């Protein structure tokens, strides 16, 4: 049961997201972030917009002169290349000192004042603290405030670090074996294979960040009203859940949209059959969140920036497959996902036996008829991402009023928290920790990564 105003608002938001999908498909690419070796982060106070339309006071990290963002800027580093991160504190005086810790790295800190975990930046001090480290291992990491963490991380002082491996990308098309219609090695449509870690078993074509956070509005309101003596974080009870700083359906909107100025990152994975996605999952929450992957299993290849490996040169030989991955507070997970439709037992393109095959089509199912007769349209509720056809790349008839958000005839799969209460925005369903993977046919136009 959904109350109608809520349903209406959600649909509007989905329509907005869908229009962007259709009009400007160029913005899905890769992971947004800042690169370089010298970063200038500034802690500031600002506001974010929740999926239910509410506005929430936050503290967060800004990239230099920019606005605070939630989560903080994703720092994209190179393995072995030293970096410095200068932090200054422009939070309100009541927020007190602020700092950054970098789990997984050996850090030296200079300037500021001594704190419990690391050196801290004092409000208004233009010199701040400078942290320096060399990321020795590739992978996905978290950074967050090391000061009064129970409140400051909740308030938004948290971000992701990606350390790129030293292994060079390779060109060529995936060869999935004789069961598939592999593209020829030099086909220009194929993306380069990049390597999350320094081993061939960690290759991927597209990568997406899944930064999981949650929020208790009560705490943020007490901060906003200056009632610091009333704040008791032991009573925190999250009612809003985020992927890359946004609630569903805002997760699907384009990155950098002007109406979400402090939530620049989206979470809108997309792929073509036979490609491999790298899921970079970071969890910075009060509670663990089980992320469930519709469509297929993922292979978990690393935790906390360390490949699941029995020893040097062995690659991710301790990796395993899950259909749901627990994101534990403060941890990161890297996982690989691919989709072909293998084993479904029918031709996903609706081919007749003599038709030409699609790239990475499952040859055994070529021309195998669709196994059921679908009910009449009036017997069905048609989801906004249903194309009207069960076949990939096809369209079918849709009733008047259907938003038609699946212009490419893709297969949409939900990736979401399986603690299902987290699919809401402060008591409003649907929302929260949801996004949709879109598997699109090779005939669709996609951005170059």
């Amino acid at each position, binding site marked *: 049961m959904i109350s109608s105003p809520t349903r209406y608002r959600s649909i509007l938001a989905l329509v907005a997201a869908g229009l962007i999908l259709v009009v400007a498909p160029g913005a899905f690419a890769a992971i947004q972030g800042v690169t370089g070796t010298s970063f200038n982060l500034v802690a500031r106070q600002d506001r974010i917009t929740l999926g239910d339309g509410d506005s929430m006071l936050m503290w967060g990290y800004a990239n230099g002169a920019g606005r605070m963002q939630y989560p903080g800027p994703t720092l994209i580093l190179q393995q072995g290349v030293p970096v410095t991160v200068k932090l200054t504190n422009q939070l309100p005086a009541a927020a007190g000192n602020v700092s950054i810790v970098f789990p997984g790295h050996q850090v030296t800190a200079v300037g500021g004042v001594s704190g419990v975990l690391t050196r801290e930046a004092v409000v208004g001090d233009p010199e701040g603290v400078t942290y320096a480290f060399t990321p020795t291992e590739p992978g996905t990491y978290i950074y967050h405030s090391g000061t009064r963490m129970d409140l400051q991380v909740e308030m938004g002082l948290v971000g992701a670090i990606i350390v790129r491996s030293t292994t060079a990308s390779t060109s060529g098309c995936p060869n999935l074996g004789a069961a598939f219609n592999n593209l020829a090695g030099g086909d220009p449509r194929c993306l380069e294979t990049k390597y999350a870690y320094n081993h061939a078993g960690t290759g991927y074509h597209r990568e997406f960040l899944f930064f999981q956070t949650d929020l208790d509005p009560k705490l943020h309101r007490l901060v906003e009203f200056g009632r610091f003596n009333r704040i008791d974080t032991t009573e925190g009870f999250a009612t809003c859940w985020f992927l890359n700083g946004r609630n569903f359906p805002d997760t699907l909107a384009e990155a950098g949209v002007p109406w979400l100025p402090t939530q620049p990152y989206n979470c809108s994975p997309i792929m073509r059959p036979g490609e491999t996605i790298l899921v970079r999952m970071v969890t910075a929450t009060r509670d663990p969140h089980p992320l469930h992957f519709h469509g297929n299993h993922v292979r978990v290849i690393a935790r906390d920036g360390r490949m699941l490996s029995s020893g040097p040169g062995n690659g991710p030989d*301790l990796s395993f497959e899950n259909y749901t991955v627990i994101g534990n507070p403060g941890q990161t997970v890297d996982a690989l996902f691919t989709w072909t439709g293998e084993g479904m037992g029918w031709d996903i393109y609706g081919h007749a036996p003599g038709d030409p095959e699609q790239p990475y089509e499952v040859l055994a199912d070529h021309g195998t008829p669709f196994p059921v007769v679908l009910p009449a349209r009036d017997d069905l*509720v048609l989801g906004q991402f249903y194309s009207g056809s069960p076949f990939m790349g096809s369209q079918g008839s849709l009733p008047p009023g259907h938003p038609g958000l699946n212009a490419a005839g893709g297969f949409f799969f939900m990736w979401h928290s399986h603690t299902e209460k987290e699919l809401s925005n402060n008591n409003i369903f649907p929302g929260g920790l949801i996004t949709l993977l879109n598997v699109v046919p090779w005939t669709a136009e996609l951005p170059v990564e």
Partner: protein
Amino acid sequence: MGKMRGSGIVVLVSALLLVSGAALAQNLMVQCPGDTDGDMIPDLPGYENVVCKHVTAGDGYAVMPDGKLMYTFGFSEVPAGTTEPRVFAERQLKAEFTGPHIVLREGDELYLNLTNVGMVARPDLFDAHSVHWHGIPNQGSIFDGLPESAPTVVIGATFPYYYSTAGRPGTYFYHCHVEVSEHMQMGMVGALDVLPAQDGTPIGGFTKFAYNDGDGSTGYDVSKTLILAGFDSNFHDKHIRVQPLPFADMLDDYHTINGRGYPDTINPNPLGSVPENNNHFSQKHDSVITVNQNQRLLLRIANISTTHLFTVRVLGIPMKVVGLDAKLLRNGATDLYFDTDSVTVSGGQAADVLLDTTNVAPGTYFFYTTNVGELINGGEERGGMMTEIVVCPPGGCA
């Protein structure tokens, strides 16, 4: 099987259609290829691997061990031979918690027909329903049950789901994905096991296995599927009182295994029959586990709670985890099995756990959540997520 379908025209079977012609009963069109006599069992050659089921989705009631009546949504299986005009009359208010336990053999093709019979106690609702086979590899959107990307079925109509199981043994479950936080909290969940093709072949002293291990290392003598789930009584009470639903406050206070809290878990009889659901047994699945000493027990443990992760333990019998999320724990030739005394299963996860009772003294052993605060049935202590494993002497219990 695909080739056998030839022209691609599915044999649509319903007793009514055969008798009265195709003009009637458009809405309740149950599909079972190869079935010629309407018993949902294929008769024609070439359809030996086809398994047909007819399941309804609607509302009903369950009863907690402390007597608390819980309004629910759920699934229920339509007995073979129920003619389609009778489905509505006979299957309303028969929601079960947990739903029908589906067991398939690898290689089966499942035609799962879902009829939406509506919510009798909430006639103001017109929700669609669906089946999401949780965890099936390489699914297509059309049969994924996701209301955003697939058709879902309105009250009075039937949707045919098709699933191929070749290469897909393991422990799964299914649930409705429409308005999923609500419908799952309300009870629309059920167990789904796919037995491996290796079953029946003697390997390592066993003929039943969790997976196609090739070496008998996942072999077992006795198995039990344990679905961990729960109810937030506040949510269910507000639901039947037609109040705004408390999503933000949702927190289960009744914790169950296979739809029952302890001690109902060890009651071998069907439960949940009350006047409110026309005396339908809405809680059919016990968690009674009996094994003989020196036998191996497989527990298929899945968590479908909408609010809780659970760690579970068997007091006195160590665990060996051999599978997670319907995958054998093996990478190449290397087993990644691990020995443990407890296993954590989040919402949406499943674990395959072997218990070896070699030299385990006959007696009663407890399976329970070590989240000990959840050993409750609402306000009643010494209940909740717990059941008993009875280890009998080698020859069996008297």
